[in-house]
């Protein structure tokens, strides 16, 4: 009896990795999933925070896919290691701060470490030749295989027939003819295969799963580095970039202003790390200040907070300012008008 071969599949939660995994399960391979959490993953964070989105589903798509396929899923925290990928991408960035090629190399390399540690035979991804402008091109897909160290133990079932035979194919563990020759940006072949497999529900196609591909988010991250005078970040920094309005009234400080109750509740969790402000007699947002504001800056910040609260039209308002030690004081200010806030302050 032949040995049961085992593979780990990179599961993003999107359709392609779901199809690629199903194709290998159908060939009798034992598959387990792996999902890497970088901190930049678009996985319901904002939905979990914002009260207005309370009714929207908050499922983790990678877990959902694993359950549909009947496989185990290992979610791995790579936040610390991933910083080097974001800060120093050898192959550069895409349209925004997305280091897609370095990211794919990193993830396949981590999967390689995992299969070696767990006695698995090969790695599966849902990549398709020509689908993505940076990491899924005919000339960059071999780079991923080579620089990750996976070489011919990396199998891309959706476009395998367009690529050189891999070790599992040569050894007869899997049949090349029962894989596919998808290429290009069209999603039609994947949707047809999903129908054939009986997958009625699936998450939106890959590409929208990382905040670093988002122009507005990337601008806020670049501003964070510029404001601090150095390129570095912690998990809290990148989480906070997903929440609230971000305004930089002066080069040495910026404000994060909750847009609704759910965001205010989330920002409450950071009160001990930031100077924060809130209107006293009117409903309004909680605002955190990141930077080194002086007394006049705090007054300006108080006027801004008033602008986004219910008392924006009154002549003067009281605002409570609290520092990281919990010491508070009240200032009375005139709310800014919309015209007082230059568009350039918005990040």
């Amino acid at each position: 009896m032949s040995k049961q071969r085992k593979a780990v599949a990179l599961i993003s939660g999107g359709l392609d990795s779901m199809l690629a995994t199903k194709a290998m399960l159908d060939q009798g391979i034992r598959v387990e999933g792996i999902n890497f959490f970088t901190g930049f993953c678009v996985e319901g964070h904002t939905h979990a925070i914002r009260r207005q989105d309370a009714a929207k589903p908050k499922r983790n798509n990678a877990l959902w896919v694993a359950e549909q396929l009947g496989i185990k899923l290992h979610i791995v925290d790579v936040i610390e290691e991933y910083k080097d990928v974001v800060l120093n991408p050898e192959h550069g960035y895409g349209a925004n701060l997305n280091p897609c090629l370095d990211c794919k190399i990193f993830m396949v390399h981590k999967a390689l470490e995992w299969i070696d540690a767990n006695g698995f035979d090969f790695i599966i991804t849902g990549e398709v030749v020509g689908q993505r402008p940076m990491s899924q091109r005919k000339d960059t897909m071999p780079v991923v295989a080579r620089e990750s160290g996976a070489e011919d133990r990396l199998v891309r079932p959706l476009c395998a027939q367009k690529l050189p035979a891999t070790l599992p194919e040569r050894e007869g563990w899997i049949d090349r003819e029962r894989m596919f020759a998808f290429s290009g940006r069209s999603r039609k072949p994947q949707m047809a295969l999903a129908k054939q497999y009986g997958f009625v529900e699936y998450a939106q196609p890959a590409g929208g799963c990382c905040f670093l591909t988002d122009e507005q988010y990337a601008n806020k991250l670049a501003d964070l580095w510029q404001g601090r005078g150095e390129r570095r970040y912690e998990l809290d920094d990148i989480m906070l970039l997903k929440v609230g309005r971000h305004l930089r009234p002066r080069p040495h400080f910026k404000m994060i202003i909750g847009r609704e109750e759910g965001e205010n509740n989330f920002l409450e969790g950071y009160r001990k790390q930031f100077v924060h402000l809130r209107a006293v007699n009117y409903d309004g947002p909680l605002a955190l200040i990141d930077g080194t504001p002086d007394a006049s800056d705090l007054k300006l910040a108080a006027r801004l907070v008033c602008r986004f609260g219910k008392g924006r039209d009154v002549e003067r308002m009281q605002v409570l300012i609290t520092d990281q030690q919990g010491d508070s004081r009240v200032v009375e200010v005139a709310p800014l008008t919309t015209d007082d806030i230059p568009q350039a302050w918005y990040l």
Partner: protein
Amino acid sequence: MSEHEIDARNLLCPLPVIRTQDAVKKLQPGDRLHVLCTDPGALHDIPTWCRINGHSVSDIIKHGREITIVVQVAEREA
């Protein structure tokens, strides 16, 4: 069987799942893990993670914004 607890409050999906997964690895079959969290997404994700890994959820308790999900570690490795 013993009782354990982890604090995953103010962490957002999928960190409560990752903390649960890492804690369960160190527990014995039959142990119970109380996961304290505030992300409503955990109400969906932790039970899903349990199902695909053979564990079970024995209780879910809500106190305002805080949620405690009690995970029962599978008797045998799933």
